[in-house]
């Protein structure tokens, strides 16, 4: 997958590149409007991540350019502004998603994957991980060809872990992903993550799956698969 990142905060840029740059991903990063504009006309990307406030220009204008060029790339806006107006403007211009800073890299990764699936009409396609098969659009999971009955939350949890497989995903990131919240005063969510994870693990193992989910002491979980 070819990804372009337009972000002028260099350290954040480096982090994102480092996180996404694995398993066949090619990630390019630029921090300036003109360079970004050149890049999008030069290459075809699968996904473009655009910060609204970039050097010498606005991310919105890049989105416009992409749409004028009839680009097929998925566009995710990443912005420090958590404003509904900006969100609406971005989506109206043709962006596919909007993520507010600060975000978890695992969340960004999940959004990219989901977007690509939608773009490439891969929704019907299954994600296979050894004995586990997931149909994201139908919200179905098979373990060794047997239907696994999961709640919505458990399903989303599994998908999130698998999307970020072999990565440590923090409890905070999981709870924010599952609760969909930009919430203000957080209720202590760790219990919530823990109880859902416990159930998911139990259900998977009961159906004969290997126990892929590792607990990383103190911080979170990892879906560990040997490729």
């Amino acid at each position, binding site marked *: 997958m070819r990804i372009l990142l337009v972000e002028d*905060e260099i*350290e*954040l840029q480096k*982090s*994102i590149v*480092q*996180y996404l740059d694995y398993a066949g991903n090619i990630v390019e990063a630029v921090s300036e409007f003109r360079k970004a504009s050149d890049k999008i006309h030069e290459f075809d990307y699968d996904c473009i991540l655009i910060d609204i406030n970039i050097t010498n220009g606005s991310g919105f204008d890049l989105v416009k350019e992409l749409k004028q060029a009839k680009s097929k790339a998925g566009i995710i806006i990443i912005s*420090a*502004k*958590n*404003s*509904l107006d900006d969100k609406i403007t971005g989506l109206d211009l043709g962006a596919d998603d909007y993520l507010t*800073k*600060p*975000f*978890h*890299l*695992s969340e960004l990764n999940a959004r990219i994957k989901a977007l690509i699936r939608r773009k490439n009409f891969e929704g019907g396609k299954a994600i296979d991980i050894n004995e586990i098969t997931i149909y994201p659009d139908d919200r179905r999971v098979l373990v060794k060809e047997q239907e696994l009955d999961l709640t919505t*939350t458990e399903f989303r949890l599994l998908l999130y872990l698998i999307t970020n497989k072999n*990565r*440590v995903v*923090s409890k*905070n*990131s999981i709870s924010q992903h599952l*609760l969909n*919240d*930009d*919430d*203000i*005063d*957080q*209720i*202590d969510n760790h*219990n*919530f993550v823990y*109880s*859902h994870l416990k159930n998911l693990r139990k259900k998977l193992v009961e159906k004969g799956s290997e126990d892929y989910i590792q607990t*990383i*002491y*103190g*911080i*979170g979980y990892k879906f560990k698969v040997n490729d």
Partner: protein
Amino acid sequence: MKLTSKSILYYLVISLPLLIIACLFSYYLIRSELRDGTDEILAREKLSAEKLINSSANLDTLTLLPDSFFTVRITSYHADAQQYADTTMYDKVDNELKNYRVSKSFYNHNKTTYLISILKPTLEEDELAEGLLSSLFLVVFFLLLSFLLVNWILSKWIWKPFYKTLSTLHDYELKKNELLILNPSNTKEFNELNDALIKMTDKIYTDYIRQKEFTENASHEIQTPLAVIRSKIELLIQSENLKEDEMLQIQTIETAANKLSTLNKALLLLVKIENHQFKEANELSLKIHIENVLKQFDWVLTDKNIQLKTEFKNDLLFKINPELLDILLANLLQNAIRHNFKNGTIDVKITNRTLTISNTGDELKIKPTELFERFKKDTTKQESLGIGLAIVKSITDVYNINVTYFYEEKHHVFQLVFPPKD
């Protein structure tokens, strides 16, 4: 005391002694005039008495004016001048003492000296005093009346711009993001006052705006370094060779960074609410929104085994920004969950235009009045940021919703009274 009443009082305090002095003065003046008149009459009567003495032989039959007491005696003593004096005599008819003016004079006729004394009642003088006193009261009464009238006119007309300014100031709120507008008047002092006030509030207003802009910009600027910190933490935890205690420390950093970013978002939200940046508003059903928000909390209700009871006697429709309504409800309900017991209860009730959310819980350690202030929180609840209710307060302030809190029978109760539909 009102300014006009105060000025009436001062007018009265000063004018009353003056009036009394004026009355006393005029009393003595008029009395001496009257006395002169009486004395003149007495002098004339004396002359006619002398004539009578000349013409008459029998003194006993002498009569003069009907209301004067007239006596003529033969005396050996003699003085030239006519003498006047005041005296009192008992009046048998009226059964009281009465004041009289007496004139004594001597007259020689046929080598006999006669003492002529004439008495004249001085009723007029007494009545004069009484009359003056009652006229004093009358004057004071009318004076008071005219003061009231004048003051009424003054406050109605002359002081009108002042009271207008006062009421404008009363209603003025920085939070409404408006400059103070005061109408010019034709009184110099009031114009000066208005100018000074406008200058002052404009200064306060620009400072206030600048401060808010600063908060907003600072919050935005904080987001980027926070994003860097959080992304680095996420990369760091991918490391395979971290020790357990190192992981724990990283987790502490992550939690703190998360807290900082939610806090930052909350502050930004507060600024935006206060800046009225949530403009769009629709008539929304509270019932539907409460049910939606409650769905988000399903898991935690189950987790804490909290009994939720909803009682909607009617639906409450209210014109509000949908985002803000959800934030308002989520904050209140989250609060009801957080400050609850395991196996506790939450009651959500709508009656007419009142929404009541009550939950079981320990009494607060902070004063209920401080509850809606920023960063006031129960220190025993670590995960709380202490800003949720400040957000509730600022949303309700924007929409004129009256929110009250009380603790009753081991229940925390939040009551929101929505303004009537227009």
